[in-house]
């Protein structure tokens, strides 16, 4: 292989499929998404993939790159193609629609099942809630709030692969930020939703979500917080 091209293997098909191999010119600061876009625009217009913002905000472009889930728009080829070969596949643990695009329906339905949405307790006529940035619960919420819903943690999670009902790191992380929201009125229902089979107790703390989260969040720590919160609620008989 010459230094000015890169061998790229890209998954084609659905659950059943094959790898197609392409030679792509190398450029400085090239990202994995740049590579996929080059292939689609210059070598094979039929390639399906998904992206939107290209700057690490929207969470649309996650794919499996050399075996690990990555946000491709912010993943430099230099960092991951150490053998001079790039193997790009769709995210794991989600049904493949075609090529590199997966169906995210299960992922987002689990956010709903985990009651990972804000339940307001006040109206527009009330004063704004005063929450200090130094408040311990606010700090817990802030630590997990920057999730971009990219699905990297969900794809990296062994428990999701083993236990189909498992809500997954992203939904549970979002629930934990809301458990720490002083303004929220849905606490008991939320703790019920994240306890038991498929809930926070199913987490094995392998920490793949923490290792691979592109936003450097720690869903494992959030899930540990939920374990403590659900135990307290179970002992009190609240759930």
């Amino acid at each position, binding site marked *: 292989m010459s230094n000015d091209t890169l061998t790229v293997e890209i998954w084609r098909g659905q659950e059943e499929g094959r790898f197609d191999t392409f030679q792509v010119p190398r450029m400085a600061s090239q990202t994995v998404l740049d590579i996929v876009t080059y292939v689609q625009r210059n070598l094979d217009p039929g390639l399906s993939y998904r992206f939107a913002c290209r700057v690490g905000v929207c969470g649309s472009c996650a794919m499996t790159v050399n075996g690990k889930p990555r946000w491709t728009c912010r993943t430099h080829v230099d960092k991951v193609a150490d053998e001079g070969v790039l193997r790009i596949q769709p995210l794991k643990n989600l049904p493949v629609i075609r090529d590199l695009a997966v169906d995210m329906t299960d992922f987002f339905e689990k956010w709903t099942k985990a009651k990972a949405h804000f339940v307001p307790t006040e109206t527009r006529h009330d004063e704004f809630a005063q929450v200090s940035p130094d408040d311990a619960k606010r700090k817990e919420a802030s630590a997990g709030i920057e999730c971009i819903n990219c699905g990297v943690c969900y794809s990296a999670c062994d*428990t999701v692969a*083993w*236990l189909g009902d498992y809500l997954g790191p992203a939904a549970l992380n979002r629930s934990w930020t809301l458990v720490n929201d002083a303004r929220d009125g849905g606490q008991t229902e939320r*703790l*019920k939703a994240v*306890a*038991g*089979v498929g*809930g926070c*107790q*199913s987490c094995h703390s392998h920490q793949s979500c923490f290792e691979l989260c592109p936003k450097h969040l720690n869903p494992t720590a959030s899930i540990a917080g939920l*374990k403590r919160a*659900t*135990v307290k*609620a*179970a*002992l009190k*008989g609240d*759930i």
Partner: protein
Amino acid sequence: MTPQRAETLEWLVQRASAAVLAICVIVHLAVIVLAVQGGVTAKEIAGRVGGSIPWLMFYSVFIIAVALHAPAGLRNILREYTPLGRRATHWVMAAVCALILVMGFRAVIGLYGLGA
């Protein structure tokens, strides 16, 4: 009791029994290492645990902790590797728990009886 509460309390029991087991296993291993110095005989074991109330209590706690801890872990494995549902895994868990209690206490009471 709601399924959520039952599952959460089961998880707590698994963790609490693990904490007890951590101490029991250390004592158990230490006794094995000390007891085998110069060879171990049935007579020596009978002399140590036979008729001893403290050892009877220690091994009783040990067995109860195992009987609570191991079935919970096996249940998680069954859930992740087999299509068994919640109810089925409960029965498997109860059977394993009963088996450990019966076998464990049979051994512990038998050894205690050697000192009588």
